[in-house]
């Protein structure tokens, strides 16, 4: 993993100011610039650069999927042979109903699952219909899977860059 910090203090201030929300005014980047004592052009250039470099994943809306009716949030976990996981990870990640698809370490013997796939449905049957598509895609290439539904949100503050 790359542990360097490729941003300077101005970039950091821009992120701190925008991580909770962009100003809802006609010229939002100008408003940010004014607050930080920078020029609007500099704020926009820095944002574009951070987007291009992937430091900012994206700008836009983050829907509250629960409030929007997606009540069945299934974390599905799969035991995939190591030599096949990259191929299937890429394929499953492309399915339109998948929001996250990651490889993570097993903890044997208790936890044999190495592929984590988040699937969202309005209802459990709807989520399970989607999960069936993953079962079909994997065929005999998976050695077992589990569906872990969230039963309660215990904390949700999201990522926050501190002061």
């Amino acid at each position, binding site marked *: *993993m*790359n*542990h*360097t*910090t*490729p*941003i300077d203090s101005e970039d950091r201030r821009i*992120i701190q100011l*925008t*991580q*909770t*929300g*962009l100003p*809802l005014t*006609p*010229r939002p*980047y100008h408003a940010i610039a004014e607050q930080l004592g920078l020029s609007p052009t500099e704020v*926009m250039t820095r*944002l574009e650069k951070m987007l291009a*470099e*992937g*430091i900012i*994943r*994206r*700008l*836009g*809306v*983050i*829907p*509250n*999927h629960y409030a*929007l*009716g997606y009540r069945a949030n299934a*974390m599905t976990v799969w035991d995939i042979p190591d030599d096949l996981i*990259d191929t299937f*990870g*890429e394929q499953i990640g*492309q399915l*339109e109903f*998948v*929001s*996250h*698809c*990651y490889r*993570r*370490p097993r*903890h044997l013997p208790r*936890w044999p699952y190495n592929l*984590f796939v988040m699937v*969202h449905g309005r209802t459990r049957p709807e989520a399970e219909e989607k999960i069936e598509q993953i079962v079909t895609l994997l065929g005999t290439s998976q050695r077992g899977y589990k569906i872990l539904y969230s*039963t*309660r*949100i*215990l*904390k949700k*503050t*999201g*990522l*926050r*860059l501190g002061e």
Partner: protein
Amino acid sequence: MDSLDSLDRLIINHLQGGFPICERPYLEVAKYLHISEAVLIERLAQLLDKGLLSRFGLLYHAERLGGALTLAAMSVPETEFDQVTAIVNAFPEVAHNYARDHELNMWFVLATEQPERVPEVIQEIEAQTGLTVYNMPKQTEYYVGLRLEV
């Protein structure tokens, strides 16, 4: 779902894909959606107020900022569940925490600005709860993004 009309849906679906960086970004999006800038801004404010949008802004990449993220799980006895929840949630590094229906019944995301804080926080949680924390950091990211059609 109650108060979502077709314009709300259009806005949510469109803005999940990104937001422009220019002098009048709302105007640019509004033109594309054939509405006025003022209406777009008002709708976004309402969607945020009603909690239908968690956020409107930027999503940054923690690791590329030099920080670290991990997913961790614990098997918490039901009788201790509330107590353990309070201990875990008290750490500012815990960004999300979910109860899930499995023997490993507590799943939380740790986000730290200093990568070395991850093992420290895990040790502190283990020390305070007396329970094992299973650390499951991401090894490969195949996809991340929300594309919920509403």
